């Protein structure tokens, strides 16, 4: 499945190589389709077994954090879309939360609910994309067609709401730009109510699928202690059995009022990470239904708080984070009082989670590496920024 795509230089000539040491260095990527972007992994293999895997990132580095410093606060929002480009709404959200925190702004309740709706739709679409690609990596093509059927509906709803399907640019400091279009909530409710049976279909395809189980159970184990040591958050941390989610741990917006569970796994392997993400789809569906109810009961209201015309946060710094589909996504804002941030740092969950890859891959077969890269759920736009 994953053929060596080249050698990273010949094995150095030494007594060991001449004595027939079987280790070989291989480049996995940067153009390998299963690396989900331009990620290069320098592998040291002993036959098919991985002795060490060293990720090499930065191929997609665009200097986003440098650009942030040259643009005014509202101008930054479209840039955040392009970090984790399959989950633009959560990126927007984390950024505007950081600015709002430093400004001390209150967000209208209706805007909070719409933001949560957008976040949870984004989580579903990101997890569906993950499920499609992770299954394709392991040779299961059918789930792709099933998940993209539902993802398409979500993207259509996004398009209906803000005109964009991927790079949404949908949130503003202090609230939102756009009110929901007429009939949007009904369309969302119809989709959400239907989603439960669709998730059952994915599970029919994979959960008890023998090939899927053999390829994922026991692969890429990272227990709670090691997750925390590597700073791993999101589904990989929860699959290790640790119940921690930013939405509950450091609540933001209206999440405290919503009723949902934090699904956890117990074996910390690729299969449990799959189960956790599937369970998160169901929880996001629950949240969406509650939000639909609230928004139907409160059909009008402010969607943008009292925001100064020129956004100039006071001198100081603030950090705000959200639970993105990949883990904790945070923005650290340092203001010098001007209309542009002095420094804006992104805490990219993909970058930090990827760091645990060598430990997860060690000792596995090369073809398992494909499953492990898939299970971390990285987006290179966020890794390299």
């Amino acid at each position, binding site marked *: 499945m994953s053929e060596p795509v080249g050698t990273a230089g010949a094995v150095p000539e030494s007594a060991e190589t001449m004595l027939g040491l079987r280790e070989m260095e291989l480049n996995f990527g940067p153009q390998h389709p299963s690396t989900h972007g331009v990620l290069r992994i320098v592998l040291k293999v002993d036959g098919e077994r991985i002795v060490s895997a060293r990720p090499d990132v930065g191929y997609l580095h665009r200097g986003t954090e440098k650009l942030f410093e040259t643009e005014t606060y509202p101008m930054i929002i479209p840039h955040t879309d392009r970090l984790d480009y399959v989950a633009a709404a959560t990126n927007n959200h984390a950024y505007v939360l950081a600015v709002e925190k430093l400004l001390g702004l209150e967000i209208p309740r209706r805007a909070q609910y719409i933001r949560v709706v957008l976040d949870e739709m984004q989580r579903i679409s990101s997890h569906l994309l993950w499920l499609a690609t992770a299954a394709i990596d392991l040779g299961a093509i059918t789930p792709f067609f099933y998940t993209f059927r539902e993802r398409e509906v979500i993207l259509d709803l996004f398009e209906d709401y803000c005109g964009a399907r991927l790079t949404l640019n949908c949130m503003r400091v202090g609230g939102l730009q756009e009110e929901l279009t007429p009939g949007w909530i009904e369309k969302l409710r119809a989709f959400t109510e239907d989603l439960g049976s669709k998730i059952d279909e994915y599970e029919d395809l994979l959960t008890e699928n023998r090939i899927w189980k053999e390829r994922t159970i026991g692969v890429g184990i990272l227990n709670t202690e090691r997750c925390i040591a590597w700073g791993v958050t999101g589904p990989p941390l929860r699959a290790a059995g640790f119940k921690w989610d930013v939405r509950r741990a450091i609540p933001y917006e209206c999440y405290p009022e919503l009723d949902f569970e934090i699904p956890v796994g117990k074996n910390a392997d690729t299969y449990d990470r799959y189960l956790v993400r599937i369970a998160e789809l169901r929880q996001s569906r629950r949240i969406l239904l509650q939000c639909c109810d609230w928004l139907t009961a409160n059909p009008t209201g402010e969607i943008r708080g*009292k925001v100064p015309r020129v956004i100039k946060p006071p*001198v100081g710094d603030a*950090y705000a984070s959200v639970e993105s589909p990949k883990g904790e996504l945070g923005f650290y804002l340092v203001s010098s009082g*001007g209309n542009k941030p002095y420094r804006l740092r992104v805490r990219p969950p993909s970058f930090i989670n990827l760091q645990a890859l060598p430990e997860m891959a060690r000792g596995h077969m090369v073809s398992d590496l494909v499953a492990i890269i898939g299970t971390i759920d990285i987006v290179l736009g966020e890794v390299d920024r």
Partner: protein
Amino acid sequence: MADEPKDAAAGPPAGEPAKPAEPAKPVAPAAPAATPAAAVPKPAAPPKAPMPAPVDAMGEPLVAALAAAVPGAVLGARKMVGQTTVTLAPDKLVEACRHLKDEDTFTFLVDLTAVDWKERDPRFDVVYWLHSFARGNERVRLKVGVPDGAPCPTVSGVWETANWMEREVFDLFGIPFDGHPDLRRILTWDGFQGHPLRKDFPVEGIDTGAAIYPDRYPDGGGPAPDDKNRKTVS
């Protein structure tokens, strides 16, 4: 929102008086050098709406306990928008971090980055966020001042996740981390010259010698100096 051409990227805010910030400075006066953000407190002229402002946090139990456990480590502490920032002495950093991890259960290093204060001495702030699960998701932010060219002690021995984060700071700010096991560039390529997130690094890029379109970009990397697309900032 292009309201005024003021360059916010040029250090302390221009509208601020030169040095009246002294009396309100929440940091211990014995630490003239390593204060966070030389112009941190907002002087008089209250804004119309109440804006968040930093307050002294030396009395917080966590800060007091740290100051008592690692003498000389804490140079100052302040709290803003509910987030506590403790300024540490660079030579006590690792000891203080070990104490926070082992005794105070801050087992999770959320993030690590740096801020370039171009004209200040020390020039850089290296910033750490710690998270404690056992203390009810409490977080604390640490800062150390690092002069240009001077090394900062590594905390990758305390939290393994600091490894890549410190590599990124080394790459983008040029702060070497003393004792780091694998200090290489991570986002830019090996052999790249300069550190992009320093304030004196041009936004339009530098000539890297990579002549991809020599007719359009004769110097190599970025747009030519007389190219109308060239954007000049700072």
